[in-house]
């Protein structure tokens, strides 16, 4: 027997989560799916898992939980290298949008340099950097999204930033190379 009277508020609660976080989860997936894949489908899979495991979704940390689920869904669907390349390639092919400040205008070449530097990083570095600057998650939420301690996030983020700065500085002189031409080994961590 289905207790519809009990199911109704449950569905309403799920709808509130869906409405509050759909776009953010879609954005997370859109930044990471390989070309040709539909981020909406991955997002739907993520929310399907959330609905199936609704009792496990923590009330006070819904978004990190959803992003962790999206991350696992992506991992199940696409190989690590596919996701890493998709993310970097998307950045490389995105036209510059905002100048850094009034003195400095980022160019396509700057982005290519950045893409080259990112391609030298490992997936773990990439994930923590992008969760921080693209999803704009605080350390606490990053920790939940990647299932590590909050103190570990601070350390990893610091190291990832340092590695990015180092690779970016090195890449300045090699911007003419395609980011993937000489980085198939994957870049460490």
């Amino acid at each position, binding site marked *: *027997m*289905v207790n*519809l*009277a*009990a*199911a*109704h508020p449950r*569905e*309403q609660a*799920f*709808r509130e989560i*869906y*409405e509050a976080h*759909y*776009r*953010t989860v*879609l*954005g997370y997936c*859109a*930044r990471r799916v390989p070309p040709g*894949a*539909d981020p*909406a*489908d*991955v*997002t*739907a*899979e993520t*929310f*399907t*898992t959330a*609905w*199936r495991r609704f009792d496990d979704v923590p009330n006070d940390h819904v978004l990190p939980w959803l992003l962790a689920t999206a991350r696992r*869904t992506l991992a199940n*669907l696409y190989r690590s290298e596919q996701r890493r390349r998709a993310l970097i390639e*998307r*950045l490389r092919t*995105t036209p*510059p*949008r*905002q100048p*850094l400040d009034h003195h*400095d*205008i*980022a160019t396509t070449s*700057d*982005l290519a*340099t*950045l893409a080259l*530097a*990112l391609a030298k990083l490992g997936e773990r570095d990439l994930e923590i*950097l*992008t969760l921080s*600057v*693209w999803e704009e998650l605080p350390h606490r939420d990053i920790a939940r999204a990647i299932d590590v301690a909050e103190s570990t996030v601070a350390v990893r983020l610091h190291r990832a*930033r340092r590695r*990015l*700065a180092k690779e*970016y500085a090195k890449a*300045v002189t090699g911007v003419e190379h395609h980011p993937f031409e000489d980085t198939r080994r994957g870049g460490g961590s």
Partner: protein
Amino acid sequence: MSRSDRRRADPLELLRRHNPVDLRTLPGTDDTDVEMAFVRILAGTPPTASPRRRFLHRRTALLLPAALALVAATTAVLLTRDVSEPAAVGCYRDASTDADLIVAATGNDVSAVETCRQLWQEGAFGAAPPPPELTECVLPSGVVAVYPASDCSAVSQPAETSQPTASAIPGTALEQPLPPTSQEHSATASQIETARDRLLARLLEHECPSVEQAAELVTEVLDQGLLPGWDLEVAAGFQPSRPCASLYFDEVRKRIELVPLGR
């Protein structure tokens, strides 16, 4: 400023400024496709990362908001209906909750099974002949589903979605006494049910009802006083690629919303 100076920009800041996806450009939950995905998630038949599952019949899309109303906003409506007379039904291609499906409206005199059989005969599932047996089941969400199976126990479900199995026995899901809370909603639910059935019947007279046609029908029903306190609302997004109006009953906000769909 020289080029080398510019390259001294903080790469992290550069990364931040060049987020490749601007959330403001993404569809939100006011988008019809996103709403459709929500219905299917609740029904246990979400879109997958493969292109396999999709709607197969134009009539499906037209009527999906009716299913949405059943599932999400007006669940109480289901409590007042006999399960053999649902307003909308999910017709599945295979005996699996993970199979392709079509959501279709059912008429007053047409059973859920007959509705789906007609879709099979119309070729909505391709050239395959209608299966010899179609069985009506009730999903845990309350959605009525029809599978090509001899009984509901033969319908496979993903392991994670296992729900109380008693709900899958046809005809039994709503036979027990209704919980007290459902009775409190029955008057409103009955009004919504009547209004929805009238509107769907009229809307289906049109191949692709325009927003003006749909608005006229809704206004007519509202003027009849069937839904006191309810208003009409037109969703954004009507455009040449999405010219057909469909309905979404928002019980919480007391709105009948016209939502845009493609042909």
